[in-house]
């Protein structure tokens, strides 16, 4: 689902951001900008989080006509969607080019956002975007306008914010007309290309799907206390005032409620309620040489009020600051080859990154002869049925799970973006590859969706991504046994220390320049597949003591290397994250997001190659930093002053409802439409 631009005040952002985004980006997530942290644009509908009060509905059957009639009577937006969908069936330009499939997906989203830095409020407000996606296919299931190089670029519109039947239908009418005309053009272009080139795919263009009828109740945002969150975020951000070495920092919170109405000409009707909240803590520090180190913690939950107590968040604010201070003092890592232990978030992030690449099966588009194919073959794309992992490992996706041992799974959903019910899919059983992530776009012999279409894909298709990915080990070790095994390997290798990675920059929070630098370095090192850089990595010496190091890159790591896993831990970690479908999970890489979860144990590689990151720093500021005003470190009720944190006071902690992950500094800019009278 698409990310509408946050309608910021029309004060411009820096030119740096503009150049990083490129002109015409509708909802551009610009690069990290410290010291001036803007509110991040927000997902319109993050994910299909079915609420507890969802109406039970029959699946795989035609909707009960009475239920449908009742819906159309009570829901104006649905009535407009349904009536205009019926009329759009009659769109016809030339002879045979009637639509054979039309879908409307209308999102109705309220987003509250607030952000602050060093105790100063920067912005706070509520936005209400209502984007609509119109998809029209001409031709037939076997051969249509999709899956060609120029397919599927036109699909977005915006609907009126009022439930005004006529205004809604007029908006849908114009969008449908444009999308239909474009679809006929696409089909003609595709046919023309195929006069000179071979179709790289023998599979049909689109898989039929039985209709689904499912209605969630429409959620409301009434219980959101905006002032409370504005104040809390402002207070929390003030804690960084106790850490003057932190160059720039910010805290932002966001609460989102969304209802997505989907209807298609196959008879599917769904209304899905989504809820999502997050709180983001971000900070940056410079090394003595001027190389910037940054870190971000993102707490996610269904609702803002489900986030931890302020005192617990305060603890995490302090932790990110002290960790950065430690990291700054830490020695730079050297090249390393040997045993590597991935723990906690790092293990889950590593699997999320490597397995997504391996389990995706991109379809090759029909393209002009001169056009290079951009799709990189996944390392498992031709390994169906083969041994791809140690046989004690299973990998499956189960979107039906809403929690794992008491921890909520944010990747839980019921129906995907194409109206297909979510399915449990076993990808790897006892080390053997069984399935791929599939949408309704067939690839090779894989025809038929497994209900994972959750992001917009290329060439008019949807991008299938994980819901709740489980990496399950049949033989596990206690943390102590795993560490002992790791150190045995180190010793056997004749090394003084091994490397433990506890946190990866996944999903990557890097800005445009940083991600480019990382990619370039990896390319120089000859890496084809890799994972995001570690944030927290330690040298673990034979006597067991640890030393934090900074600046490591994993040279080459794809799912192929997972065959070299030698052991797994017995404590699965839950990583809930914002999924953009981009490489490294790069959060600035796409305006389209959903929520996913990965549950995985710590894992041990007997050998991996790590490289020292080149630190291309500028110089620290010429003038020393301004002194912090002490009074600014204000602290609300229930919140411990920063200076006292970590000194043994008891902080009430909420149960493990919250997951640690990394996210970008919130940054965005949106162009307001130019007034018509603009002149030069």
């Amino acid at each position, binding site marked *: 689902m698409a990310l509408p631009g946050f309608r910021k005040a029309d004060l411009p952002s820096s030119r740096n951001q503009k150049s990083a985004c490129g002109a015409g980006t509708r909802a551009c997530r610009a690069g990290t900008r410290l010291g001036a942290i803007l509110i991040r644009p927000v997902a319109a509908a993050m994910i299909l989080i079915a609420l507890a009060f969802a109406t039970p509905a029959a699946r795989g059957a035609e909707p009960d006509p009475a239920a449908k009639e009742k819906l159309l009577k009570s829901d104006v937006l649905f009535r407009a969607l349904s009536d205009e969908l019926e009329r759009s069936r009659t769109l016809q330009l030339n002879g045979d080019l009637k639509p054979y499939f039309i879908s409307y997906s209308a999102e109705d989203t309220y987003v509250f956002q607030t952000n602050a830095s060093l*105790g100063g409020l920067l912005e706070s407000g509520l936005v209400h975007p209502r984007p609509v996606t119109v998809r029209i296919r001409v031709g037939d299931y076997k051969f249509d306008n999709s899956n060609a190089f120029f397919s599927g670029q036109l699909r977005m519109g915006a609907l009126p914010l009022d439930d005004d039947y006529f205004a809604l239908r007029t908006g849908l009418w114009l969008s449908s007309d444009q999308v239909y005309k474009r679809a006929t053009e696409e089909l003609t272009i595709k046919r023309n290309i195929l006069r000179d080139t071979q179709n790289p795919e023998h599979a049909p263009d689109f898989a039929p799907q039985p209709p689904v009828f499912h209605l969630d109740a429409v959620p409301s945002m009434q219980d959101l206390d905006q002032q409370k969150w504005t104040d809390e975020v402002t207070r929390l951000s003030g804690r960084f005032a106790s850490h003057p070495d932190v160059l720039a920092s910010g805290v932002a919170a966001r609460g989102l409620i969304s209802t997505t109405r989907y209807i298609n000409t196959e008879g599917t009707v769904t209304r899905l309620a989504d809820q999502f909240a997050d709180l983001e803590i971000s900070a940056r520090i410079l090394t003595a040489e001027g190389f910037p180190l940054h870190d971000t913690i993102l707490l996610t939950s269904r609702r803002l009020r489900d986030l931890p107590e302020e005192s617990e968040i305060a603890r995490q604010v302090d932790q990110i600051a002290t960790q950065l201070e430690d990291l700054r003092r830490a020695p730079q890592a050297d090249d390393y080859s040997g045993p590597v232990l991935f723990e906690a978030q790092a293990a889950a992030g590593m699997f999320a990154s490597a397995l997504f690449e391996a389990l995706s099966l991109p379809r090759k588009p029909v393209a002009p002869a001169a056009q290079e194919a951009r799709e990189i073959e996944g390392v498992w794309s031709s390994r169906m049925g083969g041994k791809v992992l140690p046989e004690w490992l299973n990998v499956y996706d189960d979107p039906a799970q809403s929690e794992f041992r008491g921890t909520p799974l944010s990747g839980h959903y019921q129906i995907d973006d194409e109206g297909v019910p979510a399915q449990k899919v076993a990808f790897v059983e006892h080390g053997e590859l069984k399935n791929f992530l599939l949408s309704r776009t067939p690839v090779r012999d894989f025809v038929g969706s497994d209900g994972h279409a959750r992001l917009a894909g290329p060439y008019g298709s949807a991008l299938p991504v994980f819901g709740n990915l489980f990496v399950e080990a049949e033989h596990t070790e206690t943390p102590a046994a795993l560490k002992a095994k790791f150190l045995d390997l180190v010793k056997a290798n004749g090394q003084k220390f091994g490397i433990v990675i506890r946190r990866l920059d996944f999903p990557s929070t890097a800005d445009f320049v940083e991600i480019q630098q990382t990619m370039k370095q990896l390319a120089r090192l000859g890496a084809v597949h890799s994972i995001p850089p570690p944030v927290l990595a330690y040298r673990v010496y034979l006597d067991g003591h640890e030393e934090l190091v900074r600046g490591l890159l994993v040279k080459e790591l794809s799912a192929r290397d997972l065959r070299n896993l030698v052991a797994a831990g017995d404590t699965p970690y839950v990583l809930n994250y914002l999924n953009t479908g981009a490489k490294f999970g790069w959060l600035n890489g796409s305006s389209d997001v959903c929520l996913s979860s990965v549950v995985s144990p710590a894992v041990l590689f007997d050998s991996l190659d790590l490289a020292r990151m080149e630190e291309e720093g500028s110089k620290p500021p010429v003038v020393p930093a301004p002194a912090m005003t002490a009074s600014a470190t204000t602290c609300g009720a229930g919140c411990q002053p920063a200076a006292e944190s970590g000194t043994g006071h008891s902080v009430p902690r909420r149960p493990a409802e919250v997951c640690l992950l990394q996210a970008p500094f919130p940054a965005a800019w949106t162009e307001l439409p130019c007034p018509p009278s603009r002149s030069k």
Partner: protein
Amino acid sequence: MVLLLVSFTAAHLGAATLIDILKSELQRNYAGLAKTDPPPYFMDYEVTEQVNVGFTAALGALVSETHSHVRGVDTTVRVGDYHFDSYHPYKGSSGNFTNFSQLSLDNNPNQIRRTLWLATDHVYRASSRRLLQLKNDEQLLAEQKDVAADFSHETPETASQLPEPFSLDTAAWLKKVRAWSSEFIKYADIQASSVSINGRHEVRTLVSTEGAAVEHGTNIYRFEVSAQGLTPDGMQLSTFASFEAADAQHLPPDSVLQAAVKKVADQLSALLKAPAAEPAVCPAILSGRASAVFFHEIFGHRVEGHRQKDVAEGQTFTKMLGEPVLPSFLSVVFDPTLRSVNGTDLIGRYDFDDEGVRARPVTVVENGILKTFLLSRSPVGQFEHSNGHGRREPGHEVVSRQSNLIVKSSKQVSDRELRAELIAEVKRQEKPYGLYFEEVASGYTTTRRQGLQAFTVVPLVVYKVYADGRPDELIRGVDIVGTPLASFRKILATSDRVEVFNGYCGAESGTVPVAAVSPAILVSEIEIQKKQNSEQKLPLLPRPSPAAE
């Protein structure tokens, strides 16, 4: 739905504190950088705080809403000296260093100081790098003649002239824009339409190392109607109307605004049926609003001071000081202090420019003779001082820009007489018709040497005025085209009634609000070209019926 309106009055109460924070951090950084090589000789911080509230409705339904409150800072660090510094224009560009940085709305000293400190370091580095590069490059170039200084000495101002608090009855306006926008339901041939109200409250606070400390600001309330349609032959047409005021109470009464909505709809509906224009050269009358845009484009942009220094510029008027550039019956004044004309507020008004220089009226042309240019603190030739026209949109570097352009005429006739003169001129030239340009949307102009020195004004509503007494005929798809110097010589007379065009002007330093005030003008010859055709097809299905539900 009721949206949170962030209080902005609180920030104003603390505005003195903001100035104090800005001053202390400015001095601290200036002192700190004094030890560097090269050291800065001038620095300023300009903070812009904006509250924006707006609603847009179409076909009776709300389609978008804006509520925002943000504050940020632009930073200037000049390295070198007043004569030659890091902002020296070179090969068609000046320094471009400021990095608009967001500041706390609640005057939090830690956040503001830290942001200023980082922004200052960023700008200082870029600025000093450019100076070193310039010094190196200058040695390689032949010495330029008439090199003016890069920065003028001005007496630093201290003032606090805050605008009225922001006030807009949002509930009432929501009701009005919804209701009035439903007028377009009656027009099935109009594809898209909107009615909107927007209010902006803006405060700018500037401190400099010379001692300037000013806070000032403006309110702009804007009511706007726009409509777009497509002709069967694929021409996209639009009409619009807008009303601006410095106080929502100054907007015209509801009856006038509602009539404007209907007029926009009627005019577009008529235009969609009107015959397409053919290229022609003939006499014409430009309405006061059309003339205002015409002067803004073909004249205003060419008297912006920085263009006279830039070798990449066409420099149409650079060497014409003291010489006639317009007919002797015309004078042009730029007056940012003028609040309104005939009851219409001018949005190019301000008390101080973005270099802290006090606004003042500037007579650029007197009886056709060019007297001066629009000047920022970048001196031009004999003009060593600013005349208060250094402006920017936040996030851009300041250059000289227009304010309220006022065309004054000593050759005025009534509208009726002007029309008679048009018909006489048509007959004299033995043309079948002349043209009347009633409404224009916008224009653009090219002032650089590279490419044609030309301008285009985009007319929305144009009539053929026949010499033989037939009724006027509305035509569609007209673009005016011409070159500036030739156009001025063709002005024969003006009306005795002025009109106001309020608009937004985009150029090097971003988009700034401007106004132009002019009487209608009669020109002996105007060249029109056909508007570009989109080649789009009309929608395949008719618009859904409003009665369908």
